[in-house]
């Protein structure tokens, strides 16, 4: 837990070669996001990633989902605001490709709108969570000692409270608006990232280039920004991808329980929650499309995450 810090203090700065060490090694690391491989960079990474069929499929599905949700409404016009009592719970037809729901709104159009909110909230929450988790983990790992212990007990305490309970509680307090939903999902999603980053930071602070930077008089903030975070970017990217998947699932769960984006904003979980009332009526179009949309999108992000992790791991193994 105290890795690096006392050891550093004990060692006279003069022992380290080159007090005015050029930042070159750190730069390379930044570019390749891998301390051991000096060549490569982004292009090599893309080449390696392209070997994963599942990863490419995931990227394809995500791009498809984005196009469907954001461009779809430009071509497929529906009224999602007004109740249409003449078209309640109709099965799929030429006019309504996936039928209509209990208030006469087009299900396919609703799927598109739901996709918008799922993707927006999922991405924003995961991004926010990653930033928070990275900074928290890097600071804890770099500082070590009692600060690390306290910061990690905070993480442990928050992990102990099940995520869904926490976000249900917070949305119940603050109301389910989009910014609140993003914030609340981010609040429960940064913990895993913080743990992972802290673990790596603990080992990074014992590495020579960190020692060298400190000997050269770099401030803690500089070391964390320039040496710790660039070296954990791989984990962060992988973890962020998984967090997007988790955030979309959490949002769906929250919406199913009635605390997601409120009508007329559509969301996949809420659509299923309404569909549950018609399980015994055989209205399959209210049950399968929205669920399939969630599974596809979440699967796609998980597949990308798996492929990214394999890519990073292969590159690490080559060291």
């Amino acid at each position, binding site marked *: 837990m105290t890795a690096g810090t006392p050891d550093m203090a004990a060692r006279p700065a003069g022992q380290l070669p080159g007090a005015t060490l050029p930042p070159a090694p750190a730069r390379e690391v930044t570019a390749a996001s891998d301390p051991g491989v000096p060549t490569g960079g982004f292009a090599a990474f893309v080449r390696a990633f392209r070997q994963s069929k599942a990863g490419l499929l995931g990227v394809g599905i995500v791009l498809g989902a984005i196009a469907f949700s954001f461009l779809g409404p430009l071509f497929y016009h529906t009224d999602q605001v007004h109740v249409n009592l003449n078209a309640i719970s109709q099965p799929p037809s030429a006019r309504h490709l996936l039928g209509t729901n209990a208030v006469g709104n087009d299900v396919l159009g609703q799927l598109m709108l739901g996709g918008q909110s799922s993707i927006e909230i999922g991405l924003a929450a995961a991004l926010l969570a990653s930033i928070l988790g990275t900074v928290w983990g890097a600071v804890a790992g770099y500082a070590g000692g009692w600060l690390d212990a306290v910061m990690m007990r905070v993480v442990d305490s928050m992990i*102990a409270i099940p995520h869904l309970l926490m976000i249900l509680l917070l949305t119940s307090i603050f109301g389910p608006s989009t910014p609140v939903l993003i914030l609340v999902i981010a609040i429960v999603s940064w913990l895993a990232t913080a743990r992972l980053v802290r673990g790596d930071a603990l080992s990074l602070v014992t590495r020579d280039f960190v020692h060298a930077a400190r000997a050269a008089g770099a401030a803690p903030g500089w070391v964390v920004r320039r040496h710790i975070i660039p070296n954990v970017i791989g984990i962060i990217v992988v973890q962020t991808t998984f967090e997007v998947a988790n955030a979309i699932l959490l949002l769906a769960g929250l919406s199913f329980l009635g605390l997601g984006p409120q009508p007329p904003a559509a969301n996949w979980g809420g659509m*299923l929650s309404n569909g549950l009332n018609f399980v015994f009526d055989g209205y399959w179009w209210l049950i399968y499309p929205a669920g399939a949309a969630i599974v596809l999108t979440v699967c796609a992000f998980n597949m990308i995450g798996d492929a990214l992790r394999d890519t990073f791991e292969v590159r690490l193994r080559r060291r």
Partner: protein
Amino acid sequence: MLNYIMRRIGQALAVLFGVTIIAFIIIHLLPGGPAIALLGPHASAQQLHTFIVQNGYNKPIFVQYGYYLSRLFKGSLGYSYRYGEPVTTLLKNALPNSLLLVGLSYMVALVVAVPLGLLQAAKRNSPADNTITGLALIGYSMPVFWLGIILVVVFSSTTHLLPPEGPQGGTIAAALQQPLAMVLPVATLSIVTIALFSRYMRSSAIESLVQDYIRTARAEGVSNTRVLWRHVLRNSLLPLITLVGLSLPVTVSGAVITESVFNYPGMGLLFWNAATTHDYPLLMGCVLVVGIATVLGSLLADLLYAVADPRLRRA
């Protein structure tokens, strides 16, 4: 080993302390402050004033936290304003039902996922392995409630084999008298857990398979089946103990949704009802109890691990 156990217990105590602090902070975030949140929106100014003075909400924040802790130690969590009953009574009735649901689901999940992951590891990259890996991916990408709804459609509304609701009646005795009603809720929660565990078991077993002791066993002429079921299984089970502990919060989240799909009278359903009706004393009580249960659960898992692992036992 004693050293490790003491340190781990100390850590758990620190986390428990953290959970109470989080709960305390949230009470103070509640709209209108703790007095309005805990007495309900219809309390008169006089009642509010009495409550604030009686409970020390006019004192400095650290003193308030001290009062809060001492109330907790006395087992007082306040009154639910929806049910008008002490929160502890409501939790006492609901907790056993949830433990039954989560416990049964874990059992089913382990019984299915352990052999599944082991076989996948043994037949790595075969069509069967890839199929199961794909299914597991879908399994943990699937919203719990959708899985529940599909099971209801298939087994209740189409074939009428199983009741679409969990056991009713509220007590654990009632639940045990309606075993058929337990099937769908347990199946829903365990399928999601199987997806998570089998994936983990697979990679853990693959790691065991390349260890020296496996090669030694093979060289000594131990059969493949025996290697798998004795040597690999025992060594891959260890990390699974930790995973069970770590997965508790996720499973509890799943239980909240499962309980609301099947109207199963556990903590999850109670919590959901409390969240939609802004029943804050009940909400806070649930968060605290579930948080404590989770901390104790993962502590238990770690201690079990220490007992089960000879390397740690002798250390």
